[in-house]
């Protein structure tokens, strides 16, 4: 082989190269323009990017908060409230319609208050009772995580959720990909949920999860079977004071606010936890000024009844829901 030999020669001109590469980009630009125009002039359906488990839950709850409802009991809180209480069973037990608007622990009390305001605005005179249920681990969190908060905020504002902070996010925003995914694809094509955490096995698709939540008045179940792990450190975050006051302010006049802490695995939490839970409830309520504290609810449950440290397994939900109904009964009457 001759090392002086040329590597390669090209038998096309620059103009020919440009003619090959540029024309396929024209439809890309036209698509981007069409999406931008559709977004700006309201030609596309409103954003509804229920494209994974978290966003499907957030959007379902946001829509439920704005829908007309005769619910007299509204549950709010983190995912332990979402997954541990069957709102339909609770309503049947109380003889009053109950609605679960709970979301996740990585949204703070201020965001839960936002959903309550939406509900109260859409349903004047309702609800009679607001039940706020949080997991003790959630009480030490400082505030909302930006991503889920942005998803919810943009959805409620009827805007696409763009992420301009990254190159890919900017391209998706400018090219119309965000608009297409959130407004068209999410409606046209059901999104399969991941099988690895069990959601795919129980619900199948995002539409299945939303259907389940609608049928259970906003409640869901966690299909996981994980053992509890992590740090059983329970305390109140300093930021919880203002957020609690904000939440209290969102409760409509004449509506009772009841507050409780959801159970943790007994062995995981340790023997001293029930006393600590009472202390947490007292201290928290000093800021929240709830009408009643649900101390009757179990502080702990056997470890085998929970998946992870926060969610009840499906078999344990009916008993816990009954315990909640019993605790609420006097307040409902």
């Amino acid at each position, binding site marked *: *082989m*001759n090392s002086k030999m*040329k*590597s390669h*020669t090209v*038998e096309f001109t620059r103009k020919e190269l440009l*003619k090959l590469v540029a024309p396929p980009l024209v439809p890309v630009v036209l698509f981007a323009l069409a999406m931008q125009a559709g977004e700006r002039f309201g030609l596309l359906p409103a954003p509804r990017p229920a494209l994974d488990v978290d966003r499907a839950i957030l959007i379902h709850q946001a829509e439920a908060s704005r829908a007309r409802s005769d619910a007299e009991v509204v549950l709010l809180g983190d995912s332990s409230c979402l997954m541990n209480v069957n709102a339909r069973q609770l309503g049947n037990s109380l003889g009053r319609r109950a609605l679960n608007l709970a979301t996740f622990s990585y949204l703070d009390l201020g965001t839960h208050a936002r959903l309550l305001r939406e509900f109260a605005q859409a349903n004047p005179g309702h609800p009679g009772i607001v039940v706020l249920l949080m997991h003790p681990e959630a009480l030490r969190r400082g505030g909302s995580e930006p991503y889920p908060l942005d998803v919810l905020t943009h959805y409620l504002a009827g805007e696409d959720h763009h992420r301009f902070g990254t190159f890919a996010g900017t391209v*998706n925003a400018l090219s119309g990909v965000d608009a297409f995914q959130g407004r068209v694809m999410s409606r046209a094509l059901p999104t399969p949920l991941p099988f690895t955490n069990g959601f795919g*096995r129980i619900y199948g698709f995002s539409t299945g999860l939303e259907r389940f939540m609608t049928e259970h008045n906003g409640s869901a179940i966690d299909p996981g079977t994980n053992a509890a792990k992590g740090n059983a450190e329970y305390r109140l975050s300093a930021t919880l004071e203002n957020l609690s006051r904000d939440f209290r302010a969102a409760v409509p006049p004449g509506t009772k606010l009841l507050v409780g802490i959801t159970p943790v695995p007994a062995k995981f939490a340790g023997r001293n936890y029930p006393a600590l839970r009472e202390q947490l409830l007292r201290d928290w309520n000093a800021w929240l000024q709830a009408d009643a504290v649900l101390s009757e609810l179990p502080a702990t449950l056997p470890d085998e009844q929970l998946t992870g440290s926060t969610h009840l397994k499906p078999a344990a939900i009916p008993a816990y829901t009954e315990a909640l109904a019993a605790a609420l009964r006097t307040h409902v009457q």
Partner: protein
Amino acid sequence: MLFNSGIFLQFFAAFLLLYWLARNNLTARNLLIVAASYLFYGWWNWKFLGLLFFSSAFDWAVGYGIARLQTARGRKALLLGSILVNLGILGFFKYYNFFVGSLTVLLEKLGVPFHTGTLNVILPVGISFYTFQSMSYAFDVYRGHIRPTRNFVSFLAFVSFFPHMVAGPIQRVSNLLPQFERSLVITRPMLEEGIWLMIWGMFKKVVIADSVAPLVEMVFHDEPPGAAAVALGTLAFGLQIYCDFSGYSDIARGTARVLGFDIMWNFDLPYITTTLREFWRRWHISLSTWLRDYLYISLGGNRRGPARACVNVFLTMLLGGLWHGAAWNFVLWGAWHGAGLVAERVFSMEHGTRNTPTPLRRFASWLATMFVVFYGWLLFRAGSWHQVAAMTKALANPSAPPWLGSFALSLAVFTAPLVAMEFWQFRAKNRLVPLTLAGWARALLQGALIVCIMIFWTREKAAFIYFQF
């Protein structure tokens, strides 16, 4: 580095620039290819670059030695050395734990205590591909099919050439190696083909294969849903693995075409076949021809009578199955196809083949072939014996999960573009038929595919299935 990642796009853009700068010097080009290919591979795990280099260097030296040695015995010894070293590398990294584990289970069942621990080794990506390619060089030199190269850099570039190194196509030495030793000409049709294949391959991987993957996961587990879901899930896996692997192969060929190289086609409409034999002429062509030329023929092929030919076919498929992965389900998959091919041979020997089969007969033949192929995919995808049994048993379970309708809809949506494209290619008898469109129509098609890729690009990146082999 994955083709379907932003980092590859940046890598390839930078490579094209350097490739253009190296246009006047062949050695510089080959050195650039080696450096870029080692970077491409090392991006995954740089610690295995030494293994890649050793495998290449050893076979280059073996080829050189075979050509210089005068005695048949010495030449044979060198060839055996190459086979032992390459299969030794493969055996250690890929099969050691499998064989030790299987032996332990077998001996324990026979009541013989056996305690040899397994090793905590990582399987180097693409090891089956580059060892086979490197080993085939020693074979071809030994058989006198090619003359050995004196140029070490060319040989390193041939083995490590990044478009095909990690998951093939496994190139024939006689086809690819000479391209590293001569000046190449890049024409406009080559560019057109390259651009088209990269776009279509990316569409198949990003839009179809990666979207169908979660559907497959919903079905393939130890408690499978009913018959309809298992059947649709198996179809989904057949779609996923085809689009994943043929997508990769198209991108590989397209990338090589843009650089002026010609690497072989790896797929040719494999699901439009009416016999298993034809299926294997169209599916993973580079491996099936490699197995035919270096294993089946070495075993004696059909030179020793029909019965021995059947045994050779079965053994070749069995080992082809084991090549895919160190697990019994791959062996079972190979045996399934081997048995199917043998049955087909016996049937055609007894009944002969009609020159003009009726449409009904062709349809029945296609259906039977697809049954074998797709049940084979069930064996291939299942993670354990237990899963194979559970899923096979589920085929008799008439219940259906509530999400079956959404499943079928999703599968239909992602199957439609592939069926449309392949029907068009089949009718036109031309794999590059989109290039015959008028300029504006081709731009529209390519642009639409790019938009789809962008829409699905943001989803979680999934590695190509064949990277694990």
